């Protein structure tokens, strides 16, 4: 079967990519993500421009910003689903392209239909071969890798459960395993904590952090709420009103920087290992509502 042959070719090249990657990591590893003077916009509307950024293997970058500031579009550009309007973007040293195996992708938690005919292990397996044409030949599925990925996120206990019957937190663990099963260089997370309870949020951020420490997977974590990831974040990319700031948490999340970015006075309070932001303009408010709400939580 042609599709089968194609499948094994892709697998071979993916493995090569990987083998090349490891021994070279001490000498010259290309950044997991590299943006050079990148700009993005639709029609006449410019979302952001002049973005130059390297995310190194093992680095944890949080992407913050109001709705409509271009966070999602940045992810789409990295995934190769949307071309940049200027500049260049490469993932693990190669131009961004649709369906790149160098990227693992986790979306926000959405309840799956309870009757979805997939077990947790089948969802993880989609991260390996869900995109390939044809039918998997029995005995050719890399179940060992699937099991290892499930083990890594502590989901082995419900590997055979119908995924629609799992709790939201369990489903999100399974999705992390799906994103990691193909050993990506870069893990993209798009609001993976939304609608999860606090304990599940901690579990998920902990898993992501452990992965980048143990496997040097770079993490780009889009979130509207910095506090759950605060212990892990190396740098922050803050997008607002066509402008952006990149730097450490202290550099970017300060009253001076955010006031300048939004063009209006903003108060940032660092307290007890948490960050509270006050005074974000109404139009960009939704990006911060959780900060305000959680200020009350003891």
């Amino acid at each position, binding site marked *: 079967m042609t*599709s089968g042959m194609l499948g094994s070719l892709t697998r071979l090249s993916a493995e090569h990519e990987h083998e090349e990657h490891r021994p070279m990591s001490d000498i010259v590893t290309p950044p997991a993500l590299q943006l050079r003077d990148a700009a993005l916009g639709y029609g006449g509307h410019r979302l952001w421009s002049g973005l130059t950024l390297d995310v190194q293997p093992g680095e944890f970058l949080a992407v913050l910003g109001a709705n409509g500031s271009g966070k999602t579009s940045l992810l789409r550009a990295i*995934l*190769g*689903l949307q071309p940049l309007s200027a500049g260049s973007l490469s993932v693990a040293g190669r131009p961004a392209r*649709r*369906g*790149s195996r160098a990227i693992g*992708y986790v*979306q926000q938690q959405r309840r*799956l239909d309870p*009757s*979805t*005919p*997939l*077990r947790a292990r*089948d*969802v993880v397996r*989609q991260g390996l*071969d*869900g*995109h*390939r*044409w*044809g*039918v*998997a030949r029995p005995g050719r599925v890399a179940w060992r890798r699937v099991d290892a990925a499930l083990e890594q*996120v*502590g*989901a082995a*206990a*419900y590997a*055979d*459960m*119908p*995924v*629609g*019957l799992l*709790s939201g*937190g*369990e489903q999100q*663990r399974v999705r992390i395993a799906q994103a990691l099963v193909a050993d990506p260089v870069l893990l993209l997370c798009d609001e993976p904590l939304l609608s999860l309870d*606090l*304990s*599940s949020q*901690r*579990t998920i*951020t*902990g*898993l992501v952090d*452990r992965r980048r420490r143990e496997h040097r997977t770079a993490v780009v974590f889009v979130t509207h709420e910095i*506090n*759950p990831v*605060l*212990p892990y974040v190396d740098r922050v990319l803050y997008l607002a009103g066509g402008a952006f700031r990149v730097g450490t948490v202290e550099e970017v999340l300060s009253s001076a920087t955010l006031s300048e970015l939004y063009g209006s006075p903003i108060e940032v309070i660092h307290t*007890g*290992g*948490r960050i509270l932001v006050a005074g974000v303009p109404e139009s960009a408010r939704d990006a911060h509502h959780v900060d305000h709400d959680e200020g009350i939580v003891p």
Partner: protein
Amino acid sequence: MTSMTLLLESRIGPDVWHQIFNFADYGQLLSLVHNSLVAGAVLGLVGGLVSSFVMMRDLPFAVHGVSELSFAGASGALLLGANVVAGSLTGSILAALVIGALGSRARDRNSIIGVLMPFGLGLGVLFLSLYQGRSANKFGLLTGQIVAIDSPQLHWLIATAAVVVAGLLVIWRPLVFASTDPELAAARGVPVGLLSPVFMLLLGLAVAISIQVIGALLVLSVICTPAAAAMRVTASPRKVPLLSMAFGLVAVLGGILLALGSSVPISPYVTTISFAIYAICRLIGAWRSRHGWARRDPAPRADSGPAPLIGSGQAC
């Protein structure tokens, strides 16, 4: 039609029972319906296979919509004296293309189907009322006419079924991915927008086959019920289509074999068996969800207690 009038005229009594179940001269009858058995087996297998994707993509209503246009095509062909299978194929494909092109979102899709369906049925009624031939043919398109299948028609059916199966095998994995998590599949490079009309087309072909055997009104019992039943008892993506095909096969072949000596069309037998299978699977599913679906370690859910994997350093 004659069978129905007979049924209506007869008094309720042993006669009626005899019309529904009659196994006299069974061996002789069996050899006469060889074509029908082959067609039924093909339909059961293909219907079961397609229905697992119909359920995954939430398309039962589309199946019904396509089948009414397929009925219009078939009755048009009957009126013109053309090949009825070709007619129903044409209707199916047109309907599938319209639904595939205009209805990518569920809400759009359902409204388009709601508009197309009565239009197709109306066209079919018009063609049939103009048709001067045997009235059994008319009734057959709506409620099944498997005994009337001749060899050229059978070849059409088998060829169409082969196209459907081959098509599904080629797009299998991306289609499963796109059907269960379209957004993620698109992000991973799966051509979700292309798979949707391609699947609608294959579905249209499968519906056209079913019209010939089970009739336009009852297509869902072959292209929905089997997978709906299978999904009640398993969540394995390999077992669902296999079970679904087995259920489809049992329903259609069983229906034909039971109907053989009777004067009633095969459809009620097929739909009843299909429904019975679903009812049983539902009961099993209910029992299983009460007693645990699958092996699950007795330890409490990992995220209900402190997860062992994470450092405890984070304040919240």
